[in-house]
């Protein structure tokens, strides 16, 4: 997977997703293609076209990447043991958003969580002026909860579980 060839001195990040109720997730190769692929999911505020995507109103874009596991081996006679990275899992994204029962994206997310089998392409877009670096991945949503305690603004929480190996970087 080619690394992005842009450097953004300072940026704001946003989360986008395919808007269709039953989307066709981008293939692994297309997840690394901005023009006509990732750009269609990212809205115009992040330099995309937004023709097939909608912004997810998250409080903050959560950490994404991989959860590495290691195997620890003791080596006879050696002061230090050996630590070998093993197969890793993609990091699940735990998201908190202000709960708006009329928000298109949140309703779609809730619907996906009820289903549990909808593969959807999500994009984390880092924007600085006219430059965007996008991390696109396919994932499924689960663990959707609504926290409507009276002492604070109602929030919804959900988790996006990325599918293994289905990610790509692109930029404009």
């Amino acid at each position, binding site marked *: *997977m*080619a690394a992005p060839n842009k450097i953004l001195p300072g940026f704001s990040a946003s989360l986008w997703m395919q808007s269709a109720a039953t989307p066709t*997730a981008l*293939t*692994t*190769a*297309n997840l*690394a*293609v*901005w*023009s006509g*692929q990732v750009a269609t999911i990212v809205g115009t505020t992040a330099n995309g076209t937004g023709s097939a995507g909608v912004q997810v109103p998250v409080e903050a874009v959560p950490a994404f990447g991989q959860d590495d596991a290691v195997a620890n081996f003791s080596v006879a006679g050696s002061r230090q043991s050996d630590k070998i990275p093993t197969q890793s899992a993609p990091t699940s994204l735990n998201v908190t958003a202000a709960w708006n029962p009329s928000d298109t994206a949140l309703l779609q997310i809730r619907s996906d969580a009820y289903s549990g089998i909808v593969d959807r392409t999500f994009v984390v877009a880092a924007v600085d002026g006219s430059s965007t670096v996008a991390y696109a991945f*396919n994932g499924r949503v689960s663990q959707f909860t609504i926290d409507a305690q009276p002492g604070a603004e109602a929030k919804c929480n959900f988790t996006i579980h990325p*599918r*293994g*190996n*289905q990610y*790509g970087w*692109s930029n404009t």
Partner: protein
Amino acid sequence: MELQAALDELTSTYKDLDLVARGLQVNGKEVADALAEAESDSAEAVALRVLAKYNPYTPAKK
């Protein structure tokens, strides 16, 4: 394997591109030539870059 067939497989798969490309043996020169002409921001270019990793081509010295 025909380069076009390899490209079709790589651009349509949801699997790990590295894993798939390791099993696709194609002509390294064809890959290098196609990569030189490919639009860089395209699925074909992404696939060709992965193919080039496992099917390297070094021009002969004159």
